[in-house]
């Protein structure tokens, strides 16, 4: 099997891009990545995106990239896996180079969410749940799933809202130093506690924002710079009432198990992590499911600062989805952008000497998860 390395990175600022279209964001990020890779001959394009159809009445994103960047008559695909669209697109590109089908692939992710009313956005995001169910008709929202999880987690472990705050405030501290982040103003515990309630016990600071943004990566056959050590993907439950353990994310655990096994590595080998903190609660569950902390103890780890620099493993040093922003289709690739930067030694909030990094991307309420492990080989 071929080795696969990252040969180009591109990203836009995350936040509000008034007057800029989804297409221009997408092409800006792609152009940057192609330029950094020195314009290799691209064999295929994969684009991760979730709502360009429902919010922007725009599809055929793959063909637009090939056409507008003069890539020729190459095959292109748009990949949808809710918030894991980017991670799943990346995995397809990786597998195709690993298997020998392609040598250079452009992967991109994009979303344009700003400008639509909150109710419209909430409705579009709810497409990431099983809507043909009594659960959806009860009025459960996407954030509501993680609110229900948080209340049970509190009940079983003794955790409380301040533990969610530790996650949100940590990610905000990191975002302050990230030039592409959406939220770069410092926030205090008082700001956190007084924020408006979204779905109890989750308030505004516990929920990732709506964002515009794009990210792109060129993957190539080779073993220079940063290589992809492994890719894991799994599916999980699509309804809350069918979860056998509400306090677990089986897709995260299984995708990690597969990626660790293929890389011949374990959680103890990982120097830096980007994981899917769509909600503060999700970060606590995911540090448990990725094997960094025992089940039911993630809240103590965040209280003790074990997920910051100098702890067990720094988590979401980009600011995470919570503060860097969450343009849904771009998120999985933005996580990888940040991990690759960490392994190149060029990142904001640089983790000194980081050699192995992990990126985990979640879709739906645990319906999809991808885990990719990277190594800086210089």
């Amino acid at each position: 099997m071929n080795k696969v390395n990252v040969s180009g990175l591109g990203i836009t600022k995350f936040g509000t891009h008034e007057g800029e279209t989804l297409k221009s964001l997408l092409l800006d990020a792609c152009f940057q990545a192609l330029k950094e890779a020195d314009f290799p001959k691209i064999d295929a394009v994969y684009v991760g995106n979730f709502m360009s159809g429902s919010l922007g009445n725009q599809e055929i994103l793959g063909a637009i990239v090939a056409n507008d960047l003069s890539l020729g008559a190459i095959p292109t695909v748009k990949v949808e896996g809710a918030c894991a669209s980017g991670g799943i697109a990346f995995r397809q590109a990786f597998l195709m180079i690993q298997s020998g089908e392609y040598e250079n692939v452009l992967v991109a992710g994009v979303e344009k969410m700003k400008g639509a009313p909150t109710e419209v956005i909430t409705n579009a995001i709810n497409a990431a749940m099983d809507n043909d169910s009594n659960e959806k008709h009860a009025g459960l929202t996407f954030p509501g799933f993680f609110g229900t999880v948080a209340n049970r987690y509190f009940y079983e472990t003794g955790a409380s809202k301040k533990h969610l705050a530790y996650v949100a405030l940590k990610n905000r501290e990191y975002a302050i130093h990230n030039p592409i982040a959406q939220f770069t103003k410092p926030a205090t515990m008082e700001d956190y506690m007084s924020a408006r309630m979204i779905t109890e016990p989750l308030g505004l600071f516990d929920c990732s924002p709506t964002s515009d943004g794009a990210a792109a990566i060129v993957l190539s056959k080779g073993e220079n710079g940063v290589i992809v050590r492994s890719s894991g993907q799994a599916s999980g439950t699509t309804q809350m009432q069918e979860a056998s353990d509400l306090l677990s994310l089986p897709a995260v655990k299984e995708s990690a198990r597969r990626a660790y096994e293929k890389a011949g590595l374990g959680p103890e080998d990982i120097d830096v992590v980007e994981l899917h903190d769509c909600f503060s609660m999700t970060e606590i569950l995911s540090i448990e499911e990725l094997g960094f902390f025992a089940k039911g103890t993630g809240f103590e780890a965040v209280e003790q600062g074990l997920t910051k620099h100098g702890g067990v493993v720094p988590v979401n040093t980009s600011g995470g989805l919570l503060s860097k922003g969450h343009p849904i289709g771009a998120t999985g690739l933005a996580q990888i952008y940040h991990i690759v930067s960490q392994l190149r030694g060029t990142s904001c909030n640089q983790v000194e000497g980081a050699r192995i990094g992990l990126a985990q991307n979640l879709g739906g309420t645990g319906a999809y998860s991808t885990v990719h492990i990277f190594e800086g080989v210089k």
Partner: protein
Amino acid sequence: MANIQVFECTGCQKQFVQRKWLCPVCKGTSFKKAEEEGAGKVFSFTRIHVTSKEYAHLAPYTVVLIDTPSGLRITGRLSEEVQINDEVKCVEQDGDAYIFEKV
């Protein structure tokens, strides 16, 4: 009190709130409809303040996960506030949603 409609595997008698095509327990493919008493205890909940347009007129409302004595776990809605372990009963079916009240 209103009942909950369930799908019961004719092979292993496991009950499901949602229709199944293949039983995850015994791999059986035959199911029959049955009714279960709509009562139980709150396993967890969230009180929703921000929601989509179609439910905005109900907000704030509570979505509950309920465990019934027969071993089902069902998602439903209440207008009032609840705590974990509160006893609730199903009072009506509103379209495809089960509406509960505190006992």
